[in-house]
């Protein structure tokens, strides 16, 4: 089994531990990831906020490169990048005039059968939880995470086509497969405030504060995410010291992959104490 892989810009910066843990667990799972050659930025929310056409063409260049690599469906770890690529795919599929315009600008022909998938979706539904269970060496027994999906993975559902938009379950099922006990809580799809962190951090502090305190009230010892921006906001804008993991990091702990301690050094709130207290360090 192999997939085309879009790491995204934050792979080299704010979410370097997400990329490292992704590569490590795929090695354990024996699934190949083929990085798209010379990929470019997806454009992010900033681009679709001010230039609609550019926000379709930037992801389209990546789709074009992934299509011609013929290395399987395109896998995207970052929820934000995933959303941008899916928005473009949605326009290419449903708006003929836009498709022609984008194809002409980028210089490619869109293949309607080409798939774009979120990393979480690939692990849960393509590789499968059976395979995940097989690879667990140290079950995360006694770990109670709050699974946080945020916005970009599940909304707009007509675009992302991933899980239930109000009460998604993929991440919860994955955590259970690792032996953990995900908590029930009401804020799994609430927005963290995204890039308002740079312009109005007080708003983000308020939104994050509510998400984190609700997770704690639900009995969670940590929050699990799949988005670089959510992870950074949740870690840096809270005041109660709740560790924030990428889901791939917890898979790495359960699979007992090597060098996982290097990931914790990248965290603003070190999860080492929590892992030690559960015998998972």
């Amino acid at each position, binding site marked *: 089994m192999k997939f085309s892989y879009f790491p995204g810009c934050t792979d080299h910066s704010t979410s370097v531990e997400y990329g490292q843990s992704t590569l490590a667990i795929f090695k354990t799972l024996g699934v190949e990831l083929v990085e798209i050659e010379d990929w470019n930025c997806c454009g992010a929310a900033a681009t679709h906020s001010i230039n609609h056409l550019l926000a379709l063409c930037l992801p389209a260049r990546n789709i074009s490169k992934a299509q011609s690599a013929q290395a399987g469906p395109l896998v995207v770890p970052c929820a934000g990048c995933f959303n941008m690529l899916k928005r473009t795919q949605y326009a290419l599929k449903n708006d003929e005039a836009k498709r022609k315009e984008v194809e002409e600008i980028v210089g490619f022909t869109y293949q309607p059968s080409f798939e774009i998938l979120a990393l979480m979706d690939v692990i849960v539904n393509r590789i499968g939880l059976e395979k995940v269970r097989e690879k667990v060496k140290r079950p995360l027994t006694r770990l109670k995470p709050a699974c946080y999906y945020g916005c970009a993975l599940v909304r707009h559902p007509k675009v992302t086509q991933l899980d239930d938009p109000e009460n998604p379950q993929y991440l919860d099922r994955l955590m259970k497969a690792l032996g953990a006990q995900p908590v029930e809580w009401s804020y799994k799809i609430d*927005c963290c405030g995204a890039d308002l962190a740079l312009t109005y951090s007080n708003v983000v502090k308020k939104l994050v504060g509510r998400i984190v305190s609700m997770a704690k009230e639900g009995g969670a010892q940590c929050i699990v995410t799949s988005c670089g921006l959510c992870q950074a906001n949740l870690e840096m804008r809270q005041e109660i010291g709740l560790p924030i993991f990428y889901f791939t990091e917890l898979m790495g702990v359960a699979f007992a992959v090597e060098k996982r301690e290097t990931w914790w050094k990248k965290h603003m709130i070190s999860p080492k104490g929590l892992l030690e207290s559960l015998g998972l360090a």
Partner: protein
Amino acid sequence: MEVEKLEPVVQAEKIAPSFLEEAKRRSGEDLSLCYQCLKCTAGCPTAPYMDIRPNNVIRMIQMGRKEAVLGSSAIWLCVSCETCGTRCPNEIDIGVLMDALREMAIEEGIPAKEKNIHLLHEAFVESIKRGGRVHEATMLIDYKLRSRDFMTDLIPGMMLFLKGKIPLLPSFVKGREEIKRIFERCKK
């Protein structure tokens, strides 16, 4: 005998009757379907900070209040979380509408009421234009220079830098010419 004249007490707002059709065409959303259930506003994370709430944005478009809508803080405070569009019983994608309204405001030369949010978007897009990928360090410096807001959020920035999460060296794409061409063709 001199006839007494009655003068208007308030100056009427300029109404643009074509605004509804224009907003419909630009967003591709049927804004006439809105029956003001307020689900969009109830779920919006930034609505409490907006001068006009999402449901009012739609109502004001229906009334042709173009200047008020395009000059609002609401269109800039929307973070595209898509909670509104997901929950709208009439399937109006309000997030997509907000994108269209921002584009219209830029084209009409209406200054963004939330200037810094617009400047941040511009700095981000410029960063992609330079190298095909975002380089956080230069993008943040560019934003600080544009906004002249040098003091806000220095500590989180320093924390990220100390964790090695803001690399000094950029990672550019090889196909810079392709990126340049795409930007040229998408120029407004």
